[in-house]
Every structure is written in structure tokens, then in C-alpha cells.
């Protein structure tokens, strides 16, 4: 067919269809950066900064209402409040350490009896903030990356699994809708929901309907050349994967338990290599190509660099950066947390997604 190329370029250039989106891989790296920052520090300044940046990214990068692929089950903000409150309460009641006593519970009460301190409250709240921040970061990922794009990140060896997962995701809303229809259909037959047995007319059609739909879909996929179980599957990749995992575990144990860093590192490297090779070989057994692979842009580079910078600052001792402010600890007496200007500046890297958009 002549002229196809022109058609293709025209479509790719049209502004309504192509929305400049970050690569799902970039989002994963950003997520890891946020998680590293949140889990390595308890300094309220840094935690607050990270949370602020996540909130900013959530606000800027969320698709407009109605276009979001999934509605969040619970708003990250409400969830955050609940988590911070429970974590504070729990810590105050359980940990009776610290100098600033707010209140005394009678000592005969099991577990919660004793002095309730301000320090315990602060530490509980900080831990709550960490959880809330991680949840909010996942909310960003969930809202900005379509399920299918995320599943494409799965190694090619697991392509059939990824396809099945992505179908399962669409099955949930379909099943909800069907449940509603069944409820109505049984109501017009005079069904009253008063005993446990009256659930039977709802559950049976739902299960049977889902099963029928699954079979139909399986047939349709087979008719279009999707075969999950290939004949004459080569077992070598599986063996490699297993060996890689074993070697990894052994190396890790050597390092950690028997204090043999050199041998341990060697085994870790060998294990990683075997895993990679195994995945690559397994992937070759499932030949398939991707229509319109997600492209990488310079924006992805910026975001990855920002996340990598944060990861490096929070994890490794870098020359010229004083990391002592990362380790904030309110016990025994509350102190004003210190902050390093360099770390604050580096942490700003997590806000990159909001800037490049």
C-alpha cells in the first residue's frame, strides 16, 4: 500500500492523540528514589520536603478528572492523616521513653500503663509520615502509568503472565457491573435479601458468567495466535534462573552472616549474571514484538538524574556533604532538628516530574 508512511507520520504528529508522558520505567526509578529518601531519614525537615514534592508531583502529573485510568480507592491525603494519627497514638501508648512527660497512665494497665511522652508522640508521627509519603508516591504511579504500560516493564520471559495480569485488571470492573445487573434481575423475580441462602441466586450467575467469559476470551486469544504453553520448551533458562537465585542468596548470606565480603560479592555478581542470562534466554522462547513501544525523552533523563542524585545523597557518604543531619532521633529529649542546605537542595531533585511536564 502506498502512502502508508505519510499516514503514520501524520498521526504521530497530531497533538490530541499523543500526550507527552514519562516512560513507565522512569516512574519506577522515581518511586525508588522517593522510597530511599523516606526510609533512610527521620529528620522532619527532609520528610516534610519529600512529602511536599510528592504532593506537588501528584497535583501536576495526575491526568484530569474523568480521564484517570483508575479511581483511587482512598484519597492519599485522607489515608496519610489516618496513618499519622494511628502511628502517633500507637507509639505514645506503647513506648514510655522520653523526658517530656505529657500525661501518666496508671502503671497497672498492661502495655499502655506508664508515662506518655512528647518524644514518643513525635517519633510515632514521623514514622506515620514515612508511610503516608510512600503511599502517596504509589498513588502518583497508579494515576499516571496505565496498567498495560506498567506490565510492559515485565521481562519478556513473563510476557504471557503480563498479558493475563492485564486482562485480570479489566475483569474487575466488568464483574462489578455484572453483579449489579444480576442483583436487579433477581430483585424483579421477587428475591428478598433476608437469609444467607438468598445470596445463592447472586453468586451462582456471577461465577458462571465470569467462567463463561474467561473461556470465551481464551478461545478468542487462541484463535488469534496467542499460545501460552509452547511445545518443546527449553528447560535451560529455568535452570539458569534457579542457579542465579541460589548464588545470590549464598553471596548475601556470606556477606551478612559469615563476614566474607569478597567471596560474597563474587557470588552476588555471578548470581546477577545468571539471572540476567536466564531471563534473556527465556525471553527468546516467547517471540513477540511491541506495537508502538513507549519512547524515552530527555524529560525521562532529567527525572532519572534527579532520583539518582537523591538516592546517592541518602545512601552513600559523598564528599562535602554532612550526612549527620539525616539521623534525627527525638529520644531522650526533643531537640530542634538540624538541616543541611546541600541535602535540601539535592532532595529537590524528586520534584523533577512536576517541572519537566
Amino acid at each position, binding site marked *: 500500500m502506498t502512502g502508508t508512511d505519510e499516514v503514520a507520520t501524520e498521526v504521530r504528529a497530531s497533538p490530541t492523540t499523543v500526550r507527552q508522558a514519562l516512560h513507565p520505567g522512569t516512574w519506577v526509578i522515581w518511586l525508588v528514589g522517593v522510597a530511599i529518601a523516606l526510609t533512610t531519614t527521620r529528620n522532619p525537615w527532609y520528610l516534610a520536603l519529600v512529602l511536599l514534592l510528592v504532593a506537588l508531583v501528584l497535583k501536576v502529573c495526575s491526568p484530569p478528572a474523568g480521564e484517570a485510568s483508575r479511581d483511587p480507592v482512598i484519597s492519599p491525603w485522607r489515608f496519610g492523616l489516618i496513618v499519622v494519627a494511628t502511628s502517633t497514638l500507637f507509639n505514645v501508648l506503647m513506648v514510655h521513653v522520653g523526658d517530656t512527660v505529657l500525661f501518666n497512665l496508671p502503671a497497672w494497665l498492661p502495655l499502655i500503663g506508664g508515662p506518655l511522652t512528647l518524644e514518643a508522640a513525635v517519633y510515632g508521627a514521623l514514622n506515620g509520615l514515612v508511610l503516608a509519603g510512600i503511599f502517596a508516591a504509589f498513588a502518583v504511579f497508579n494515576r499516571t502509568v496505565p496498567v498495560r504500560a506498567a506490565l510492559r516493564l515485565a521481562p519478556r520471559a513473563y510476557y504471557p503472565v503480563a498479558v493475563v495480569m492485564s486482562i485480570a485488571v479489566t475483569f474487575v470492573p466488568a464483574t462489578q457491573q455484572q453483579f449489579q445487573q444480576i442483583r436487579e434481575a433477581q430483585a424483579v423475580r421477587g428475591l428478598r435479601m433476608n437469609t444467607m441462602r438468598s445470596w445463592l441466586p447472586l453468586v451462582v450467575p456471577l461465577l458462571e458468567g465470569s467462567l463463561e467469559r474467561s473461556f470465551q476470551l481464551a478461545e478468542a486469544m487462541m484463535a488469534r495466535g*496467542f499460545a501460552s504453553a509452547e511445545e518443546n520448551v527449553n528447560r535451560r533458562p529455568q535452570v539458569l534462573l534457579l542457579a542465579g537465585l541460589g548464588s545470590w542468596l549464598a553471596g548475601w548470606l556470606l556477606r551478612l552472616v559469615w563476614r566474607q565480603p569478597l567471596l560474597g560479592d563474587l557470588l552476588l555478581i555471578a548470581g546477577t549474571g545468571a539471572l540476567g542470562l536466564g531471563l534473556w534466554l527465556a525471553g527468546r522462547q516467547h517471540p513477540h514484538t511491541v506495537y508502538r513501544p513507549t519512547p524515552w525523552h530527555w524529560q525521562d533523563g532529567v527525572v532519572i538524574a534527579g532520583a539518582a542524585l537523591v538516592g546517592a545523597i541518602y545512601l552513600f557518604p559523598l564528599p562535602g556533604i554532612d550526612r549527620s543531619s539525616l539521623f534525627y532521633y527525638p529520644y531522650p529529649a526533643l531537640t530542634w532538628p538540624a538541616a543541611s542546605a546541600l541535602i535540601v537542595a539535592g532532595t529537590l531533585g524528586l520534584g523533577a516530574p512536576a517541572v519537566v511536564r
Partner: protein
Amino acid sequence: MIHFDHLTYTYPGAQQPALNDVSLDLPEGELILVIGPSGSGKSTLLRCINGLVPHFSGGALAGQVRVEGLDPVVATPKVLSRYVGFVFQDPEAQFVTDLVEDEIAFALENAAMAPQEMRVRVEETLDLLDLEPLRNRPLKTLSGGERQRVAIAAALALRPRILVLDEPTSQLDPKSAEDVLNALVRLNSDLGLTVLLAEHRMERVLPFVDRVIYLPDDGSPILSDEPRRVLNQIELGPPLVKLGKSLGWQPLPLTIKEGIRFSRTWLANEKAQGKAGGDPVARRIVHRKTHPAVQAQKLSLNYGGRKVLRNVDFAVWPGEIVALMGRNGAGKTTLLKCLIGLARPQAGSIMLDGEAILGKDVASIARDMGYLPQDPNTLLFAESVRDELFTTLHNHGAASKTGGEWRLAAGAAAVEPDTLLRRLRLEHKAAAYPRDLSVGERQRVALAAITVTQPRVLLLDEPTRGLDYVAKEGVDRPPQTVARRRHGRCTGYT
């Protein structure tokens, strides 16, 4: 192109073979229509062509099938997917992805086609079925007809030479069905694609069909010939063909145009003999009762900030049959749901036999007003067809179960379930598991389960979707009816 050689196939666990000694020879480039009563093995025959039978279904197969020189039993459905495209009944249940373009690309991705070539193929396929304007749309936002066209496009992406469709329009409204069938006719005439189609709505395709295969369910031989010859030998057929047969018009008219030509000469003859004349039979309703069976006044309903119903007024008198028509999304289903109490209008009143029913619970309204939902599957759950009917009665307190035996309550105003099953031609299925039945049979079971309480008013939400002509006639007329069909001709409902 496709040869069946003494093919006999039995489903696992079945007593009777679904296909018995089938020998067919189907040449290339034809548009072939497969017809037969429900349960006669149409789906099974079609699935033999790409190897889904026996690869997916299991069972015992004897004889041989050849498709483009390949044996689908030896070569797998995966290999056959390059030669045979397959489209199923339910457009929703065959989609793997959620975007039009991705859906078309799915088969190509599985075939590990180079991305450059894949893009060309997707463009071509989009053009082939006029899907270009829809290419970036999520599948859930498409209408039924558009979805089925996407399904056809997805089946054609690998450029098979044969396209097989198993009742592709049975879940669609008449307008969408027409779009789909027109697309098929074009694919056949423009590209020379061999198309095998199992279809209930014959009148639309018959004029273009090269060959009709008739699968009987009573053991008589399979017919495979030019449409007129087959239709002359069988009872099944669209209304026009039946009319032609009963008046002895030969060759049988397949299009309205041909029918009009016959009817002109026929009318002239009748006039000459002084027989014809007078008006066509008109149906007159005598309003004997003092109040209507159902009356709605100033019914208004907002849903999600949208006015679905605004000041709807109507009255239906006892004995009347009313067809409710309107475009997709015009609020037809919503109106019916208001009547039965499943949706709550914000304003207005609904009277059933002079009694206000707004605000009453669904179960008590349903006793006097039957409502048949679009999808009969949502209704069926019992162990047998007979149980299904008795369960409805039990819900309304008109039947009880003692020692595994159902008994009608004394003085219950209900049809004896076995009588009703006989009337709906379901008596031989009374002990069958409802979900094992064909689509048409399920629909009739659902209707029976609703009407067994003898409701005074019956609401039907697209009741003839997926029914063949015989089954449509089998739907018995209850005493008082509100009928609803989309873009409806009321004739199908008798």
C-alpha cells in the same frame, strides 16, 4: 479451499455427536451463510475450521478437515490463525486490550512481526473497516456495532484468506447489525475474502450470499447449495421468503425489490378476481376499563447531572402492546427500570391499575409487573429449568418445596409451570441445566421465569436479541403487555 470429509465430532461427555458425517466442499471467495435451528452444531462446524474444535474443546473427532491444504487438527490453532480469522458472538468477551489500535496489533505482536511492518498492517486494517476515526478510542466507549467491527479488524490483521464469524450480530441492535453485515459483504466482494457466517438475521445478507449451508437438528442430511434452492427445501427463513413460499412465488424473492415485483402482479390478479380490497388488518384497542394498566405522569429522572427523563407522560391500556423506540442512550432502559422500581425518579408518579407504586419495593411490584432484563444470563442460577420457574413462585410465596418436590400453593394465581414450558416449547428441556442451553432457549427460560406469576403487565428489554425466527415466534404472548424493542418493528413480537 475448505473441505470436510466425513467429519464426525462428539463433545466430551456427550451422548450424541454434535456433527455427524459432514462432507462439504467450499470453494474460495464465496460468501457462505450457515443456518440451522439453535443447537444444530453451527458453532461447532465453524470452530473445526481453525482447530478450536478439538484443540480447545477436547472430544472425539473422526474424518478429516482440510483448510488451505492444512489439517487444523495436526497444525494448531496458532498456525491456523494466519489462515483463518475468527469473530465471536459477544464483542465484549473477545477483547484482550482496551484500545482499538492495540487490539488490532495484538495478533501481530504475538506473531513477532517487525514494528515497521506492523504499523503498515494496522493502518491498512483500520482503513479496511473504516475504523480510522476510532483508532485511539478506548473499546469501552464504542457502540456494539463499532466493537464488532474492531473484532473483525483484529481477526483480519494477520491477513487471513478466510474469515469465520459465529453469529456476530446477535448481541447488536438492528442498526449496528446492518453496519457489520454491510462491512462483511464489502470485504467479500472487494477483497475476495472467503467469508463463513452463521447468522440469524438472514434478510440482510441473503441477496449477497453465494451459498447457504443448512444444518438440521433432526438427522436429515446437511444442505449446501445456492440460497434459493436451500430455502425452498427448509422451513427456516426470513419473513419475506416465507411469504414468497406460501404464495408460490418462484424464483423465491430474496430482496424487498424482488418481493415488491411479485406482490404487484399478485395484487393485480387478486383485484381482477375481486378478492382483494379493504384495509390491512388494523388492531384496535377498546378502552373498556376505567383506568389504564400503567400510567406515568410527569416522570423526571436525573442521573449524574444529566436529565435522562424529563416530564414523561404516558398511559398503557390493558391488552395493548407498546413498542418503546429511541436511539442508544435515549433512556429506554431507564424508563422501564423506573416502572419496575429499580430506578427512582426524582419527580412524577406511576400508577399500576390505579394504584400508586412509586417507592414500593421491587419484589412486590414485580408480582404484578414482569420485567425481562436484556441479558437472560443474569437471571439463571437454578439446577434445572423447572426449578428456575418454581424459584420465582417461591420468592413470591406461591410455591413451596417439601421433600425435594415443588408444590404450588393452594389458590396461587400462577400458571402451572409445566404448562408454561410446553407453551414455550421447552418441555423437553425441563430437567436441563439452564446454562447449558443455547442463547435462544435461555431467553425463553428467562421469559418463563418472569411470566410464571402471571403478571398483568410485562416489560421486555430488547427481548428478541439473539433469537432466530422460529424462537421469536415461540415467545408466547402474555395477556397484557408493554413491549420494548430498539428501533422497533413490532411485527417480530407475536
